[in-house]
C-alpha cells in the first residue's frame, strides 16, 4: 500500500510537471525579412523549419514578424536600447556593425556554438566567418543564408560573339567584352543591348564593381582600426573604370546614374544588358523574369580580378541570426538559432530555400547535382575558392553608395576623381 502510494504520488507529480511544462509555453518573437505566409523558396523553408521545430519542442512557439529589410538592424538596436527588441533578429552583413558596436546581442558561443559536436564543426563550411563577428571571445551572430556577388552574363550573347567566361576573368577583359556586346540590334541609332549594367543610385543601392575592384587591388578597404583607405591608385583606377564605361567606352547607359540596383536588375531581366555584377541570390528571380531571352542562358562567373590569374574577391555576405541580450528566453531562443543554423536547418535552406549549402554534408547530397541547382553549385565553388570576409566591426554598410556617388560626381563633372574619392573615404570614416 505504501509502495503503491509512493508510485502513485510519483506518477502524479510527473504528470503535473509534464502538464505544467506543456502549459508554460514560451513564445519567441523573431524579426526577419522573410514572410512565412508568402510564396518563395526561403519563405517555405522557414515555415517548414518552424513547424518541425515546434513539433520537436512543444513548449516553444515561434512568432515571426516580417520587417522592412533595410531598417531591420537599426530597429533591432533601437528596440534593444528601449527594452523591447524581439528574442531573435536577422541582420545582414553590411549592418553587422550595429550589432558589434552595441550591447544588443547575446554571446552565442556558450549558448549555441559550444554545443556543436566536433563532427558538426568539421562539417560546417563557414567556420572562418565567425572571425568577423567575434569580439573579445564573444560571438555575436551566426550565419544563416550566405550569399556573395558574382558576375552574371547571358550565355546566348556570349556564344554569338564568340566569348567565353575566360574572356571576362579580369576587369580589362570585361571592358573589352562589353564593347563587343554593346549593340544596336534594330538599327534605329540607339543602343538596345548594353555590355554591362550598373545601378549607381544612392537609394536602394547594392553592389558596385568599383568597390569590388578596390577591395581586390587595395587588399581590403580598412586598416586594423577600421579606418578606410581607398583614395589611392587602386581606388582611382577602379572608379575611373566605371566612369569610362559610361563616358568613354559607352558600354553602360548613362541612365545608370539614376538607377537603383533593382532598376538595373529589372533591365537585365528585360534583356537590355549582357553582363552585370549581382548577388547570387537573384539568380532564380532573373531566370524566372527573363523577358525576350531564354532565362536558362543565364550564367555565373567569378567576380573579375584586377590582375590576370587571380579572380576578384567573392565577399561573403548575407543574413545572420542574432539573439537579443536582454531577452527573457535566452535558452529557448538559442535553441531555435541552433536549429536554424544546424544541419537540419541548412538542408531546408538549401531545398526548398535554394540557398548556398552551409554544410559539406548538404553540399554533397545528390539533389545538389540537379541541373537546376547549377547556379548554387557555381556560387558555392566560387565562395570556396575565393571567399573573402569583410570585418564585422567596421561599418561599410554605405561604402558602396559612397563609391556610387564618387562615380556620379566624376561623370557629371562635379568633382575631380581625387576629390570625389577623398569625400567617399571621409564619408565611410565618419560612420565608424
Amino acid at each position, binding site marked *: 500500500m505504501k509502495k503503491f502510494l509512493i508510485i502513485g504520488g510519483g506518477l502524479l507529480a510527473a504528470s503535473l510537471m509534464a502538464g505544467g511544462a506543456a502549459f508554460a509555453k514560451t513564445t519567441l518573437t523573431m*524579426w526577419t*525579412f522573410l*514572410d512565412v*505566409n*508568402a510564396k*518563395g523558396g526561403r519563405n517555405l523553408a522557414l515555415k517548414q523549419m518552424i513547424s518541425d521545430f515546434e513539433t520537436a519542442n512543444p513548449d516553444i512557439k515561434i512568432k515571426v*514578424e*516580417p*520587417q*522592412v*529589410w533595410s*531598417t531591420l538592424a537599426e*530597429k533591432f538596436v*533601437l*528596440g534593444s*536600447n*528601449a*527594452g*523591447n527588441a*524581439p528574442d531573435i533578429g536577422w541582420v545582414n552583413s553590411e549592418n553587422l556593425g550595429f550589432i558589434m558596436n552595441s550591447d544588443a546581442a547575446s554571446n552565442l558561443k556558450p549558448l549555441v556554438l559550444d554545443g556543436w559536436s566536433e563532427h558538426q564543426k568539421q562539417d560546417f563550411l563557414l567556420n572562418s566567418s565567425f572571425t568577423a563577428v567575434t569580439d573579445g571571445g564573444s560571438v555575436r551572430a551566426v550565419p544563416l543564408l550566405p550569399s556573395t556577388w558574382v558576375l552574371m552574363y547571358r550565355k546566348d550573347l556570349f556564344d554569338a560573339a564568340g566569348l567565353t567566361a575566360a574572356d571576362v576573368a579580369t576587369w580589362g577583359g570585361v571592358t573589352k567584352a562589353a564593347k563587343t556586346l554593346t549593340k544596336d540590334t534594330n538599327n534605329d541609332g540607339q543602343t538596345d543591348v548594353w555590355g554591362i549594367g550598373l545601378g549607381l543610385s544612392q537609394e*536602394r543601392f547594392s553592389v558596385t564593381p568599383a568597390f569590388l575592384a578596390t577591395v581586390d587591388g587595395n587588399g581590403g578597404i580598412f586598416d586594423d582600426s577600421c579606418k578606410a583607405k581607398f583614395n589611392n591608385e587602386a581606388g582611382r583606377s577602379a572608379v575611373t573604370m566605371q566612369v569610362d564605361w559610361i563616358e568613354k567606352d559607352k558600354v553602360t547607359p548613362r541612365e545608370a546614374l539614376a538607377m537603383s540596383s*533593382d532598376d538595373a*536588375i*529589372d533591365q537585365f*531581366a*528585360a534583356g537590355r544588358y549582357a553582363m552585370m555584377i549581382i548577388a547570387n*541570390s*537573384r539568380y532564380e*528571380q532573373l531566370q524566372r*523574369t527573363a*523577358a525576350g531571352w531564354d532565362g536558362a542562358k543565364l550564367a555565373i562567373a567569378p567576380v573579375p580580378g584586377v590582375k590576370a590569374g587571380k579572380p576578384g574577391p567573392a565577399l561573403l555576405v548575407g543574413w545572420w541570426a542574432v539573439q537579443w541580450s536582454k531577452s527573457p528566453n535566452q535558452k529557448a531562443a538559442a535553441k531555435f538559432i541552433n536549429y536554424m543554423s544546424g544541419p537540419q536547418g541548412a538542408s531546408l535552406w538549401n531545398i526548398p530555400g535554394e540557398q548556398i549549402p552551409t554544410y559539406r554534408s548538404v553540399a554533397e547530397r545528390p539533389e545538389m547535382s540537379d541541373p537546376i541547382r547549377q547556379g548554387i553549385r557555381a556560387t558555392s565553388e566560387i565562395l570556396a575558392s575565393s571567399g573573402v570576409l569583410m570585418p564585422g566591426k567596421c561599418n561599410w554598410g554605405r561604402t558602396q553608395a559612397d563609391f556610387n556617388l564618387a562615380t556620379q560626381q566624376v561623370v557629371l563633372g562635379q568633382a575631380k576623381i581625387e576629390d570625389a574619392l577623398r569625400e567617399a573615404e571621409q564619408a565611410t570614416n565618419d560612420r565608424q
Partner: protein
Amino acid sequence: MNRNPYMRLALRRAALRTVVNTVIVLFALAPIAWGVVSSLKPANQILEVPPRFIPQDVTLEHYERVIGDKGLLFLGNSALVSAITIVFALTIGSIAAYAIARYEFSGRRILMIFTIGVMSIPIASLLIPTFTLLSVVGLINTHVGLILLYTAYQLPIVIWMLYGYFLSLPIEVEQAARIDGHTALGTLRRVVLPLSKPALVAAALFVLVFSWNDFVVAVTMTSSESVRTFPVAVYFYLGFYGREWGPLLASAVISIIPITAIFIILQRYFISGLTGGGVKG
C-alpha cells in the same frame, strides 16, 4: 446674322474649355491611369518595351495576391487608425480652437505662434527620438501609439482651420446660449459645432489624407503585422530580392480607391468648409 458672332464666340469658348480641361485631366490622371493599366497586366508584360497602353492580356492576379497577403487586415488597420485619429484630432482641436477664438487670455498669442511652430517641424527629424519615447512608454508597435502621433501632427492644422471658422460665426447665438446656462463645452457642442459642419468635414479630410497615406511614421513605429497599415504594406512590395511591380501597382491602386470615394462623396462640404474659416487669418 446678328447672333452669329456670339455663336462663334460661344463655340470658340466651348472649344477652349474642352482643350484646357483635357489638358488638366491628362496632367492630373495620366500617371495614375498608367499605374492602373499596368497593374492589370501579367507580370512578364509589365516591363515590356515598347509599352502597350491597352494590355494584351488582362489579369487580376496581382490584386488577388495583395488581398491574399493579408491586404484586408492592413486596410482595416489603416481605416481604424485614420478614423480614430480624425475623432481625436477634431474633438481636441475644436475645443482648443474654440478657446482661442472666443476667449482673451494671456498666453493666447504664444499659443497661436506655438501652433505655427509645431507645423514647421520636419517630421522626419522627430522619428528616432519619437521611437525612443514610444518604446519607453510602451506605445511602440501599437495602434494607440500611431493614433496619438498622427493626432499630435495634425492638431495644429485642425486648430488653425476651425479657429478661423469659429471667428466667422456670429457670437450672439453663443452669448444667448451662455445666458441660458450652458457651459463653454455645452455651447460648443450644442451651438457652435452644429453650425460648423462644413469646416469639420474639411478638417477631417485633411487629417484623413495624412493618416491614410502616411508611410514614414508608420514604418518606423510599427513592426508586427497586426498593426501594419496599408502604405507600409505597399512599401513591402519594393521587396528585397527583387521588386514586384505587379502587386506594388495593384496595392497602390487599392490604396487610392477608398480615399477617392470618400473625397468625392464629401466634396461639396470641402470647399464651403474652407470658405468659412480655413482661409481666414
